[in-house]
């Protein structure tokens, strides 16, 4: 007993040291966001000597963070909705319906998942340019309305629901589309929640695609806005950290609220960004 207590103490010490390494950048982001500009150059302590909450307002004036934020919300909402609807419909077809080339089609999608984004991004950009969608919400959202990961995730979940439930509903006179909406969808809430969280985090944090298809502040997302802010206001670390903090808050809030679903999703799918 004594030995295991001592062992646990060592474990805690190592874990706390590790946590410190992980958390320091966040603390640093937070405290710098509240420092005066002069202090960011001479900082010796992690806490600001005076708290400058006005940095947030001033950062939002220095760059159109409000517009960036709105663009990120519109884009993320569009993509999450797309994934929930389009992926779910396709997943249901793969899980439950018998149709020609079902397996071939599924293997093609799986193979496409293994192709790095780099390979497809140049032609995809060219297509979006041809459609005249550069610098529009269309260009940000439409190409990512469906994704293979979501189809696989939901297909696995749908397949685990007993067919008997659907059969019962069909005997009671429910159509196939009806069973999808009344039996499968309500039973799959946890899977939908997991997909929605992943889709949101990917969309909100995405960088390369929005970088390519946006040119003006009207459609730029918060991540792109931040990255360009580094170039323009690189020396105003306090404003930069205030901006970074505001951009990070939605991801962290979603994470804190849905931690369990998120961790379960990773553990079962081995997904990684």
């Amino acid at each position, binding site marked *: 007993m004594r030995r295991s207590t001592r*062992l*646990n103490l060592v*474990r805690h010490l190592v*874990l706390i040291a*590790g*946590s410190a390494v*992980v*958390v320091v*950048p*966040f603390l640093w*982001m937070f405290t710098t966001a509240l420092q005066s500009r002069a202090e960011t*150059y*001479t*900082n010796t302590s992690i806490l600001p000597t005076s708290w400058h909450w006005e940095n947030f307002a001033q950062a939002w004036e220095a760059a159109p963070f409000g517009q960036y934020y709105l663009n990120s919300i519109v884009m993320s909402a569009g993509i999450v909705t*797309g994934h929930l609807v*389009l992926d779910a*419909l*396709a997943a249901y*077809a793969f899980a439950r*319906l*018998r149709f020609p080339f*079902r397996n071939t*089609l599924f293997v*093609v*999608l799986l193979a496409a998942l293994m*192709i*790095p984004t*780099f*390979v*497809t*991004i*140049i*032609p*995809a950009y*060219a297509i979006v*340019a041809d459609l005249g969608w550069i610098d529009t919400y269309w260009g940000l959202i*439409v190409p*990512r*309305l*469906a994704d*293979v990961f979501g*189809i696989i995730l939901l297909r696995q979940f749908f397949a685990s629901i007993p067919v008997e439930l659907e059969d019962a509903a069909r005997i009671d006179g429910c159509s196939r*589309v009806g069973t999808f909406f009344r039996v499968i969808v309500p039973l799959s809430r946890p899977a939908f929640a997991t997909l929605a969280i992943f889709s949101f*985090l990917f969309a909100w*944090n995405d*960088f390369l695609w929005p970088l*390519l298809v946006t040119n003006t502040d009207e459609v730029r997302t918060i991540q792109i806005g*931040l*990255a360009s802010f*580094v170039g323009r206001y690189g020396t105003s*670390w306090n404003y*930069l950290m205030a901006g*970074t903090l505001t*951009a990070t808050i939605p991801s962290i809030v979603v*994470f*804190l609220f849905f931690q369990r679903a998120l*961790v379960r999703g*990773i*553990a079962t799918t*081995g997904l990684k960004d």
Partner: protein
Amino acid sequence: MTEHRMFAPRRERYEREQVITAVVFLLPALVVLGVFVIYPIVAAGQISLTSWNGFDPVKEFIGFDNYARLFSDPEFWNSLLVTCVYAVGVCLLSVATGLTIALLLDAPLRGRGFYRGIYFLPAVTSSVAAAIVWKYMLDPAGFVNGVLALVGIEGPDWLQDRWLALGALTALTVWKNLGFNAILYLTALQALPQGVFEAAQLDGAGFWHRLRHLTIPLLAPMTFFVVVQALITSFQAFDLVYVLTGGGPQGGTEVLGMLMYREAFRLGDFGYGTAIAFVTLALVLGVSLVNWRASGAGRSSLR
């Protein structure tokens, strides 16, 4: 008539109503994936054989010139070297840190959920935000050198030295993915058969002995997975590099993704950029294949 009979049995195997529903359900997703994912894979192969600036309607076919150019391009060789050093570093450190944290969290410890949450925090933060904070911390007047000064060391200008910058990029990547790797390992650890460990303990096998001869071999399939994932993500690195160093100093962190972006979208050479993308693809596939072949554990895990 005979034709009709020939196809009749086939038609019977599928219910008309199911096929129609399937087509309707699949169509929206397949249109999006077809136009923006599947077709681009084919189109990329074609673009890589042309000299195209991305806007001209005419794509001049130049055969394998873009690929030949790669061989004589010192920037490409530099980029390949940088990418490989970075990928190997990320790989080794991901396994080491992920496994360590998972082993610590595997014990029935108080506050496990709390630690797990903390370690996961960087993973949900955007690459841009993470890289901006690290850039600031690594500034000559930043946190890192501030801490070093406390113990009397004059810190270097991290992001201005080729290898230090690459090291910083590696550390940032590992920091960001720590939570993922720890959770993957933790899941694998908790699925291991406990009886074997108890038996070994009764036989007098100490912690290190069990770790070396039981835990690590039994975790081989997961290590395989973590390694492949780490390699694939580092071959495709872009966001972190773009913000932390922009590929500098003097190409010291110009990974393949940065080079592709610069050639295609800054210099307007889409053909050459696509050729670089295909080299990335070859690397990703090659690594998966070699790793898969080399590790018997990997084979069994895929079965």
